[in-house]
């Protein structure tokens, strides 16, 4: 009992508290007894070699994969028992590694679908494209540099623009916890710069978890870095500390 009270009290400070998280696929533990905490307004970057379990961690938080053991608490709600859409409605947004947008719809429609209203069957049938919706879509489109492309079918966008569109689709939901899986992967240098600028603007006033390989980019934005290796935390802390950690150097350079 007592222990519970103490944990609860501790969790209060954190937006996200992951404790003892484990998932195994046929005996292979992709994530193994993982614990970490994300503060309010903190920007946390997760790095690690391929197969370290980075994407799986995001999958677990957003409910795409079910945990074998452990708990994920988001603002004092247990996420492991919630369905994907309930987790989203609770305030967790997630961007996929490959741009995941609706190619057959226009940019406007892509953003409109992500607008957090009319999410039930009846709600969607009676949803009206009223003033506030249009204004919000316009506002977000300007943020993601796509205000001129609102009528464009999304499949005709460039790779970078598709990534921005997906970020915009998250932004319009205004999530308290934003999770981005390699947001600058596959981008040209200029797109990358613009994306960094975009991310710097949107990560204000919310907690963010980013998976990224680009160290320059990580250095720019990270408050704290978590290094994963074989499903476990290898090192955690500010960028400078992590970079100096001999275990990290070993994993990245030792092989």
């Amino acid at each position, binding site marked *: 009992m007592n222990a519970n009270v103490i944990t609860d009290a501790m969790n209060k400070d954190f937006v996200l508290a992951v404790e003892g998280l484990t998932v195994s696929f046929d005996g292979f533990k992709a994530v193994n007894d993982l614990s970490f905490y994300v503060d309010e307004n903190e920007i946390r970057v997760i790095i690690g070699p391929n197969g370290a379990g980075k994407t799986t961690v995001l999958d677990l938080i957003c409910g795409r994969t079910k945990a074998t053991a452990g708990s994920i608490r988001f603002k004092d709600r247990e996420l492991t028992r919630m369905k994907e859409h309930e987790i989203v409605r609770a305030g967790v947004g997630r961007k996929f590694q490959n741009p995941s947008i609706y190619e057959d719809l226009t940019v406007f*429609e892509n953003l409109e679908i992500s607008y957090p209203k009319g999410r039930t069957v009846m709600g*969607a049938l009676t949803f009206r494209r009223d003033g506030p919706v249009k204004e919000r879509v316009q506002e977000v489109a300007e943020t993601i540099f796509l205000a001129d492309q609102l009528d464009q079918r999304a499949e005709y966008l460039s790779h970078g623009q598709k990534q921005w569109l997906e970020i915009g689709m998250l932004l319009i939901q205004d999530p308290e916890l934003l999770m981005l899986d390699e947001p600058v992967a596959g981008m040209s240098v200029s797109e990358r710069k613009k994306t960094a600028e975009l991310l710097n603007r949107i990560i204000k006033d919310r907690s963010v978890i980013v998976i990224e390989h680009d160290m320059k980019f990580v250095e720019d934005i990270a408050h704290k870095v978590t290094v994963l290796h074989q499903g476990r935390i290898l090192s955690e802390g500010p960028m400078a500390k992590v970079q100096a950690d001999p275990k990290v150097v070993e994993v990245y350079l030792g092989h």
Partner: protein
Amino acid sequence: MTTQAPTSGRSFFLRPQDMIGIALLALLLLVVLPLALDNFRLQFVGKYLTYAFVALGLVLCWGYAGILSLGQGVFFGLGGYCMAMYLKLEASSVENTRIQSTPGIPDFMDWNQITALPWFWEPFRHFGFTTLAVVAVPALFALILGFALFKRRVGGVYFAIITQALAAIMTILIVGQQGYTGGINGITDLRTLHGWDIRTDGAKTVLYFVCVGLLLACILLAYYVKSSKLGRLLVAMRDKEDRVRFSGYDVSSFKVFVFCLSAALSGIGGAMFTLQVGFMSPSFVGIVPSIEMVIYTAVGGRLSILGAIYGTLLVNWAKTSFSESFPELWLLGLGGLFIAVVLAFPNGIAGLWQVHVAPRLGPLFGGPARRAASPAVAEPLPVATPAVAE
């Protein structure tokens, strides 16, 4: 540039070219065909139009949501049987069935040594209940099935195979339980509706117009669904189901909804079939009719509401005229149609219209001006992933 283009003209759920299309269809079905065709031919058209309800449901379910059901005949049959049960009971009054060993029950029950009306026939004495059942029974069945399958993320080809198996099960069941269902012959010898003889030419003409009226109403409903946010969500789900789920939507509930809607539409079609043709039998329930109904939709254009109607009329007209003169050629033709529509023109007649005819007619008919604002018409081809959990 501002947001004007996509937002203006969407305050009403029909675009101008949709209204023209619906008006032309109404003109064709309500004026041109009744004037041009004799009673006999017009009754054929009326029969075809009952399949158009199914095709309409498939446009929403298959074309938009990417859910291919090969069991739509089941819903068509359920609606049709509901109506047939009501009509049969009315035709089996004690006076009409005096010669039976148990008067007052349908003749086929008497032949099968059944001596009392089964409980599930009892409510079909009431017209109000029957009307409700025509829509509710198929929808309820689809609801249960949809819940079981979509909640568990069964989709794509697995869903198609399971629904096809259901069509097989339903046929075997109806044929096997002939005491309760009329067996392979179905429920025949239907005569009156509230004392109104439905077998006369006059009655059939009236029923034709009722059928067209209902169909037009259902078309409007389909347009409403299509143009609502739900319609766009269906397209989005077909493309990136996970993205929709992680935008806060319970994807399965939308699939259940559209599946139920298509089932209810099919049920209405089935009931109108029974009324116009005067019987219902398992030959409209099984695997073969179910998949043929898919081809009506495919020929018309799986993404086009009006296309589905024209596709149904065209394929059935071809079937009737071929079967009359060269019955053996029809199967070859139908087989060829399946292959051609998939390989050569996957968007059906509507797609050909869009590409070849509409550009010459100008924006009112869906010409070049609307290209940008018409999602999901140019290159749809829903790529179904075998969506199995884990």
